[in-house]
């Protein structure tokens, strides 16, 4: 090989590295801008949903602080080399898992669910913050290299079961369904065999029946979802209010601060019903970009995943974006009547520091994993 060939090869490599670096830079900037706009939109949305309360700036003000802190978390977590996360590996996973288990014993109960630590100044929900670490734990199995084929599939299922058991014990079936979605994203994007999922279907079916028996309110929600008029003042109430709230928004919406129905009738307009509340103010025209925004986030992560050095990092990056988009779509599906109420928040929009920090932490780790 002549020196000229080596030179050309080096140039090509340098050119490729430059284009990879540029792609990463552009994607990272685009992602940060999109997250910033979503965070800002979320603060306005929360203000709007509480405009008629005694202190309309209370939740919006707190959310502003969380968004600011969230960007610090995004920067900090993306600055940590991904090799450090991989070196910390199962110790990092164990720390977050321990927090998830201990909340059952030392956590506070809110709305019948023992899933928050009361730190005095704020509540922290470990099941939210641990989401990116859960995805990371599944991809650690891929990175290991020891597991392949059916044992790998079984290992991912076992790890998922370990994570979801304490969540089911809280009980928080909404967050549990998000974890299941995360498992499916990792499982499928890792290229594992679809037939290995068959045992999951049986287990999932049996678990669902058990849940319906042990927690009748879950079945009530499903029945009310199928026909809200069965119990319009009870389990069907929330579903009917979603529809009325969306209708009041119309095509172009009402003004900010004019979300009368969200303030007067819609339960939890700043958390579980954020999308419907937002639609009342901005209409179809203003809500559609929110739907598109999550699709763009998922695509950005897909694009970033192609820059990853290893398969496990690729799966991790894609799953982070996919899970945020899936959770958002699940929340929106509930709000537009495609799914029974589950208590899922809309990432970046719903009030809550834990959800926001989790989202930023996840994207930060994803950016770290994609860095050339």
């Amino acid at each position, binding site marked *: 090989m002549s020196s000229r060939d080596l030179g050309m090869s080096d140039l090509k490599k340098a050119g490729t590295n430059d284009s990879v670096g540029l792609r990463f830079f552009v994607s990272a900037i685009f992602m940060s801008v999109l997250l910033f706009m979503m965070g800002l939109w979320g603060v306005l949305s929360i203000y709007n949903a509480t405009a*008629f309360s005694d202190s309309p700036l209370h939740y919006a003000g707190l959310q502003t602080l969380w968004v600011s802190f969230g960007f610090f978390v995004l920067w900090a977590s993306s600055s940590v080399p991904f090799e450090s996360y991989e070196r910390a590996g199962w110790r990092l996973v164990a720390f977050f898992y321990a927090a998830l288990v201990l909340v059952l014993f030392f956590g506070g109960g809110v709305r019948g669910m023992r899933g928050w630590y009361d730190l005095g100044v704020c509540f922290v929900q470990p099941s939210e913050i641990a989401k990116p670490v859960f995805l990371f734990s599944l991809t650690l199995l891929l990175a290991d290299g020891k597991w392949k084929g059916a044992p790998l599939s079984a290992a991912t299922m076992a790890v998922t079961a370990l994570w979801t058991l304490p969540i089911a014990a809280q009980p928080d079936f909404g967050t549990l369904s998000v974890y299941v979605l995360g498992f499916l*994203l990792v499982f*499928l*994007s*890792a*290229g594992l065999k679809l037939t290995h999922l068959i045992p999951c279907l049986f287990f999932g079916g049996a678990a669902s029946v058990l849940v319906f028996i042990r927690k009748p309110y879950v079945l009530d929600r499903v029945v009310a979802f199928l026909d809200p008029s069965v119990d319009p003042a009870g389990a069907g109430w929330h579903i009917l209010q979603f*529809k*009325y709230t*969306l*209708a*009041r*928004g*119309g*095509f172009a919406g009402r003004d900010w601060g004019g979300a*009368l*129905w969200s*303030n*007067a*009738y819609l339960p939890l307009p700043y958390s579980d019903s954020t999308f419907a509340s937002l*639609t009342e103010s901005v*209409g*179809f025209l203003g*809500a*559609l970009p929110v*739907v*598109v925004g*999550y*699709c763009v986030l*998922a*695509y950005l992560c*897909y694009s970033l*995943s*192609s820059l*990853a050095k290893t*398969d496990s990092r*690729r*799966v991790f990056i*894609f799953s982070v974006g*996919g899970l945020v*988009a*899936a959770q958002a*779509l699940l929340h*929106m*599906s509930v709000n*537009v*009547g*495609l799914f029974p109420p589950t208590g899922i928040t809309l990432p970046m929009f719903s009030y809550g520091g834990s959800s926001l920090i989790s989202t930023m932490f996840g994207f930060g780790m994803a950016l770290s994993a994609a860095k050339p």
Partner: protein
Amino acid sequence: MEPSSPSHKRAVILLFFLFLWAALVAARLFYFTVLARSDYLAVSNRVSTRFGVIPAIRGRILKSDGSPLAWSEFRVDMIVASVPSSRRVREFLEKRVREVVPGFTFDAARENQVVAENLSPEEMRFFLPLVSSYGVLRFSKRSVRRLAPGADSLLVGETVEKNGVLVGVSGWEKKFDGRLRSVPGKFRVMVDRTGRWIPGTWREIVKPCDGRDVVVSWERGGAAR
């Protein structure tokens, strides 16, 4: 990652399904905000809108020197807007009301049963927590006709309340009823799920029209100007 690798194809398929899901959400959103909007809006307006009467004052009957012979005053009562159908709820509410109004009992046969009448502003403030907490109780305004001391009640006449409006049935009240009678207005307001008025949603639909004063002269045999 090789673009043609199975896992890459899986990622593309997953992304496609996410986009499809988003399209479904967008379509459903369009349905509620545009296509079926008017139906749901009609139901929600029915649930949340309340109409009410804006009272208007009946005109005064004045003597030729301008001093009043008969005039209207408003009184506020606490009434039962609707009797609860559930016996358990009725008994609970009766017990609650008896804490402030001893001896109270629901009477389903009586429409708009008065719980406490002629309330002063202080009494209204006292009963406000009860009225705010239980939608079956309501403050109700009514007009009463007052006569000046020494006025001939047969000459001045009497009024009765019909559909919230004082109507003259005898004497001058009847003779000049056309001028004296007021026309109440109408308002529309939005209420929240507890039945409370939502601030900023009160709208006057029909302007109230107060009755005109009538000046009577005995020297002219009860003629008016």
